[in-house]
């Protein structure tokens, strides 16, 4: 049973990590806490649902089709609502603005899709494979693997492409990045867009194994925050490690203590890291 528990912990941890990445990127580069992160996940789930329901496109494919739309959405929000705020007020004002947007998104979703619960039921939703005596459902397996691929892909984007490096450079030193020829303003807009895309993609990938309703976003936010802190703010590998540690720790706590203990476990981890290594598990400097 213990191997099964750990394997399952890792699989859910990968999904947790994907949920956190959009948040950590936006916070890392712009020091903005995006309060509508959960709602972006929710919109991603609905996008996946609609494309699956109407056109039969698998969420694992449609996340790539809808990404440009979410990029534009995120960029517009940053360009017109957050960027014009004077820097001195931005840290907290952006909190209110993104909170307001979260209300707007959630209610709009209710008007568009009603408050009904939706699910994406794939043709192979009941199929199971067995791996080291652990039964893993295909949707769970594919979603976790997709998460891993996305995280690795994003890591490569951030380390191997000019744009990715420009984003990191901007995060580390705006002024110096700008004299390298980086249009810092545009990179900030793009980073916000990317953060929203990552949240929406996480939603899409989550849709086959979770349920969807307009207010589902709030379920993910605290989890995502926990991982951002565990892994270190702004760090992609940190989010991955943080997600897996959280997944496994929760699984172990819920097995050997009581199931309801797992959340307390998560917060004890959270506080412990904050107190003893506020820069996150991988710690040190801001790293990728």
């Amino acid at each position: 049973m213990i191997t099964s528990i750990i394997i399952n912990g890792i699989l859910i941890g990968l999904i947790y990590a994907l949920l956190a990445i959009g948040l950590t990127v936006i916070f890392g580069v712009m020091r903005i806490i995006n309060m509508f992160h959960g709602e972006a996940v929710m919109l991603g789930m609905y996008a996946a649902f609609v494309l699956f329901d109407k056109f039969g496109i698998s969420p694992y494919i449609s996340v790539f089709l809808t990404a440009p739309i979410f990029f534009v959405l995120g960029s517009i929000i940053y360009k017109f609502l957050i960027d014009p705020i004077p820097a001195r007020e931005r840290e907290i004002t952006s909190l209110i603005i993104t909170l307001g947007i979260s209300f707007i998104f959630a209610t709009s979703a209710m008007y568009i899709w009603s408050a009904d619960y939706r699910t994406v039921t794939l043709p192979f939703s009941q199929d199971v494979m067995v791996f080291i005596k652990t039964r893993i459902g295909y949707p769970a397996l594919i979603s976790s693997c997709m998460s891993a691929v996305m995280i690795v892909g994003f890591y490569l984007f951030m380390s191997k492409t000019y744009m990715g490096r420009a984003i990191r450079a901007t995060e580390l030193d705006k002024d110096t990045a700008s004299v390298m020829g980086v249009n810092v303003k545009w990179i900030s807009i793009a980073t916000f867009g990317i953060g929203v895309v990552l949240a929406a993609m996480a939603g899409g990938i989550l849709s086959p194994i979770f349920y969807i309703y307009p207010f589902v976003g709030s379920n993910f936010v605290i989890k995502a925050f926990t991982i951002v802190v565990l892994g270190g703010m702004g760090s992609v590998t940190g989010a991955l490690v943080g997600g897996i540690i959280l997944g496994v720790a929760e699984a172990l706590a819920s097995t050997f203590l009581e199931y309801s203990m797992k959340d307390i476990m998560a917060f004890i981890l959270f506080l412990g890291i904050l107190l003893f290594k506020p820069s996150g598990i991988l710690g040190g400097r801001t790293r990728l």
Partner: protein
Amino acid sequence: MLEIKGIDSGYGKIKVLKDITLKIEKGEMVALVGPNGAGKTTLLKTIAGMIVPSKGDILLEETSISGMPPHKTSARGIAYVPEGRRVFSAMSVEENLLMGTYLKKNRPHKTESLRMVYDLFPRLEERKKQTAGTLSGGEQQMLAIGRGLMMRPKLVLLDEPSLGLAPLLINSIYKVLERLNGEGMTTLLVEQNVKKALSLCKRAYVIESGEIVMKGPSEDILCDENVKCTYLGI
């Protein structure tokens, strides 16, 4: 190459530079010296576009670049090598250098540029995978200069390249600068190490409290009593 006509500049309402006029010819290496807080860095930042001057004009090859954001001035060929250790600390050495080829026009020359920098600073090649933040001060300075050179600039603005370095390292960095100047690179060098800077450059400007108080050939400035007094207290 570069012509600055009577600019005022500063941060917000604080005026740091007053009526600065300055000229650099192509292929020239000019020093800008002055005490801490005199406005040297502010001037470089203004040229690079990080600060918009409130008055006056800046011309690069006869076109005004005044008020242009830094990513545009860099596209026009200005490389600003910031003071201190402003390398991208969490990125590797090679990633730092590649940031120098961020501009589209420089991307095709990526490999040659890297080769050139690694030839200039073999230390950097040895440590290309290392995180920049873990380099020693001198290596970070080399990295910052190398990164600027990756931009294949027409004009390099060097901000205190000898800051906090041991004499040996300073010498090796200065040798590189000399060699690059010999190859025709135009440079504006800001230095607190007056003697060094003046020995390298033929011409210099002295700035104090945001004003150019003296300009001319290096030898003249070195002999000036006032300068001696400011720097040596003699």
